[in-house]
């Protein structure tokens, strides 16, 4: 969702108003995704790098997030009706306590929904996510005295924030930038990347569909590569006993700990 501030400059409006328009555009895009049958969307809302921005802008973004999450919590019936689950991925402990509470509440409130998934990357960078996965293995794996041979890329992948999501098929970046800016670097190894020059608040359904058509055109060239990856993954699972009781118990404990943290943040 890149280009909110450039859009604000071009329209001579405040930066926060630009971000607000960007959020409205997100709502439109999610509607288009729903209509097209796209079941899972991950959006990059706030990077850990964005903390370097001015206090005014950061606080403005947090206020926008507070407003939107509060509104979401008022509409949980609608979310339940459509089976939408909200997941926020990132180091949410870096955020103000009240925002952590709102985010944790939204996640817990929709955790039983399983038809559509909206993942919001907030206080997120891929490096932090990978470090978090390594940290999880280092701090909790030894509790059950696991052999080091269990540790491989498959296990690390299962410790990422996106543990329960399939890898993205399409990465759609606006505003003409052709870099990934530390977004899901581990997960997008076989994703089609689509870069468009349009600024995020100005995106139309035609821009969106151009991205979808590009994905449909390009995905067949990735079939062989994806098949190889799946085979490699299956081989790793077998060689490292990924589905053994001890590894699955570790992952289950990790999920439980994460939920416990959310419950603690929600009642903070």
């Amino acid at each position: 969702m890149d280009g909110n501030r450039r859009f604000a400059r071009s329209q001579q409006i405040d930066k926060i108003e630009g971000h607000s328009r960007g959020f409205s555009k997100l709502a439109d895009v999610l509607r288009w995704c729903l209509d097209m049958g796209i079941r899972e969307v991950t959006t990059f809302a706030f990077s850990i790098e964005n903390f370097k921005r001015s206090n005014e802008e950061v606080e403005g973004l947090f206020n926008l997030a507070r407003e939107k999450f509060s509104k979401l919590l008022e509409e949980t019936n609608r979310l339940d009706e459509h089976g939408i689950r909200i997941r926020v991925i990132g180091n949410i402990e870096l955020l103000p306590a009240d925002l952590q509470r709102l985010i944790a509440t939204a996640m817990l409130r929709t955790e039983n929904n399983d038809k559509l998934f909206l993942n919001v990357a907030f206080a997120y960078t891929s490096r932090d996510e990978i470090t978090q996965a390594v940290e999880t293995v280092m701090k909790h794996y030894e509790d059950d005295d696991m052999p080091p041979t269990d540790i491989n890329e498959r296990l690390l992948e299962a410790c990422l924030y996106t543990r329960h999501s399939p890898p993205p098929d399409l990465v759609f970046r606006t505003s003409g930038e052709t870099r990934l800016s530390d977004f899901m670097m581990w997960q997008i190894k076989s994703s089609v990347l689509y870069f468009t020059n349009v600024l995020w608040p100005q995106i139309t359904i035609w821009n969106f569909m151009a991205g979808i058509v590009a994905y449909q055109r390009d995905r067949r060239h990735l079939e062989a590569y994806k098949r190889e990856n799946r085979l490699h993954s299956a081989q790793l699972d077998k060689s490292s006993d990924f589905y053994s009781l001890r590894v699955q118990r570790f992952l289950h404990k990790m999920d439980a700990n994460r939920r416990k943290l959310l419950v603690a943040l929600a009642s903070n």
Partner: protein
Amino acid sequence: MMEIVSILIGRLLFILIATCELLQQLWHRLHALARRSYDYWQCDSHHHHELLERAIELQKLPQHLVLVIAPDDRYVDAALLKRIFGYAQIVGIPYLSVYDTRTPKNGYVDLSRFCQTSGNESRCFLWPPSQQSKEQRQQVQLNGCKTVHSNGTTNGNASNGAKHYAQLQVYQIGTADGHALIADVCRELYENRSTPQVQELLKERQALTDGISAMLSKRLGFVVPEPELGIIFSRLTCIYGLLPWHVRFTEFHTHRSGCYFEAKSFAKVLFKYARCEQRWGK
């Protein structure tokens, strides 16, 4: 009824797009053949050098360039890579990495065949190999002497304008250097978890991040900055698992498989890179 019509329209659209793609690919191949033949007969390297020397004047040039070759690419070979290395050398890019995802049967290029190994690292090379580099220098010295006698030039340039360029440091990256390497680092940290050094890293996340960075650089033999610019040789834009830890801020440019890659293409990529603004989150 409407559903069937929609499906039919969708299928027709697909056939249309596939036909356009095929025609486009044919056009690119014909164009590549024509350009290659023209360059072969014209031997117009002077023009290419001029184009690239204009690129040297750009305010922003990458220090580290990475080339990503898709598993189904059939056009990137040793000759093209040598040309690209030459362009990078002229422009003054000191480091270059090659990430070839193909298998030896499908065109994988082994850099050790035409590059000189550097030190003990099996993945680190120098280009051109020192014999070729020595010949380049001797050529300059010989021609330089003539230049001194004939027109008094003393800047080391040959009378025909040939310059001496520093050797390029080239890295060959494999699929095992991405996700698997990060997992290896994690395993190593886990095995040494009781040591004070690792315990210190676990106290703060940033310290652990820095520790992982250092360990990855050591294993890769990377004493270079992270890649700033990447050229993907593929029919689509995908990074194919390239160094997930290192390419977070790399600007990617896709060069469509089958299209001719020449000095002009390289210069265009550099000009585009010079124009992009990196905000680092701010």
